[in-house]
């Protein structure tokens, strides 16, 4: 079972992503600002991060750059961004080894990308 950190300042989107990932068998940690997310990553045990771009304290891009430099993301990161500014952000994210998903994200695609990054499909959650 993998632990995924979801960094997103919009509470209802954070909850929706959390629910989706948990339902598909993943452990989820949540953060609502960049600094919180970074602290959680530094505390260890996170395999992969799903982050928003615009967050208080630190943008998702700065967070990704710092976390990558510190080697805190063994399985990489997925950056969620709205469609209108996707193009400009995509290059910056790719340069850090991350992947961009547009917002509103496709739940099935997000999951497929996560499972691809984790190497194998995670076991379904016990219900």
């Amino acid at each position: 079972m993998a632990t995924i950190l979801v960094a997103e300042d919009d509470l209802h989107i954070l909850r929706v992503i959390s629910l989706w990932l948990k339902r598909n068998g993943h452990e989820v940690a949540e953060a609502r600002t960049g600094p919180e997310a970074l602290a959680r990553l530094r505390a260890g045990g996170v395999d992969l991060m799903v982050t928003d771009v615009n967050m208080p304290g630190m943008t998702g891009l700065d967070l990704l750059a710092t976390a990558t430099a510190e080697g805190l993301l063994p399985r990489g990161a997925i950056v969620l961004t709205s469609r209108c500014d996707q193009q400009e952000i995509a290059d910056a994210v790719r340069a850090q080894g991350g992947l961009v998903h547009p917002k509103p994200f496709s739940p099935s695609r997000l999951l497929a990308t996560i499972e691809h990054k984790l190497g194998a499909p995670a076991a379904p959650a016990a219900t």
Partner: protein
Amino acid sequence: MDERLMTPLKERTEAERERGAVATACGGPGPAAIPEAPPVSERTYERLVLENEGLAEEVLRTYEQLNVIFDVTAQVAALTDAQEVKRLLCDRLCAMLRAQGVWCVGGAERDEDFLLGDSLVCGDCPIEAGAHAGVAELARAVRAAPTGRRVQVRTIPLTRAICGAAEAQLMAGPLVDGEGTEPLTVCAVRCKEPFTAGDMMLLDSVLTYGGHVLRNLNLVERLKRTSFEAVRALVNAIDKKDRYTCGHSERVGILARLTGRELKLPAEELQDLEWAGLLHDIGKIGIPEEILNKPGRLTEAEYAIVKEHPQMSYDVLQPVASLSRVLEAVVQHHENYDGTGYPKQLRGDEISLAGRVLHVVDVFDALTSHRSYRAAYDVDRAMKIIRQDAGTKLDPRVVACFATVVERLQRSRPPELEELFGTPVQESH
């Protein structure tokens, strides 16, 4: 840092419950905006949790639908083929439903035809051999369903008959791709978990949207076909007027397209070439029949009138906006590569590539057709003359490509050219 924000949702909400407070799921824009909620009873708490989950599911479903619509909308402009649209829809459905397979089967009359023709299979769950009857039954059930309940999850025995897997669930719905025709049936197979009401809504909305796209595509296709048929009718009228050139325009159209393909032209230009070929002689409508059908050679004055036909073709077609791309080739189809042709004595690259193609093909078809003053030449003799003219009257590159086309046609050919290549006409010297 607020420790609360790092704990997983369940533990957190439980901790909050102990404190008698529930964070509002749709709080303000920032992390500071979680208002303190008044204490709630156990029952209210449970209800709120359920409501929250329900809303989250709704959001997930809506996001998924939005993404399919974004995808299809973004790609549909580039997709002009109904089959490609169906494949896109099935691929996306397969991913979003996490299905083992998605099939799109056509509306066949006989059960055994159900998996043939337009059927499309995505994912890695094939339809069982011999499942025709099951698929046909499924399609009938989908068609017979009332409008409000078009998507259905099918009974286990039918599922087994179709996909073999005992534990598989099968969900099916209609894809209405045309007016007045039987809808296609799209079915999804999932083995791991049962389909939910949300999955059914998802399939329904994708099929409704996909149906709109497909119906539009089919309408455009029908309009294109109608205008093409109208042009063919007009061209037939011209060919009928000149008894020596019966079928000439059609053959020039086909041969021009084949030569264009050999020249590696893009699909759009191939279509233009075919239209130019079909229409190049349309100006003959302005030439007196006694000249067109005159037995024996023409006088100089008569020949001068015949030479006006490329410009007349241009004048006839010029008002038709959708044919603007074929005008240049049409007016140039008697221009010679060395500048000795008509009407403008253009030379080399001054003549459009389409014009040069049309000229080679037109000469070939004229040589291989009967004339009032000579019998038709056979293909080999016609090609010999064309090769001799390469570099003078005809563009050598086009001639080389055309020769390849002719060689290929002599081995196998479309039925429309059977007469031309099938029965070599006896020469009369």
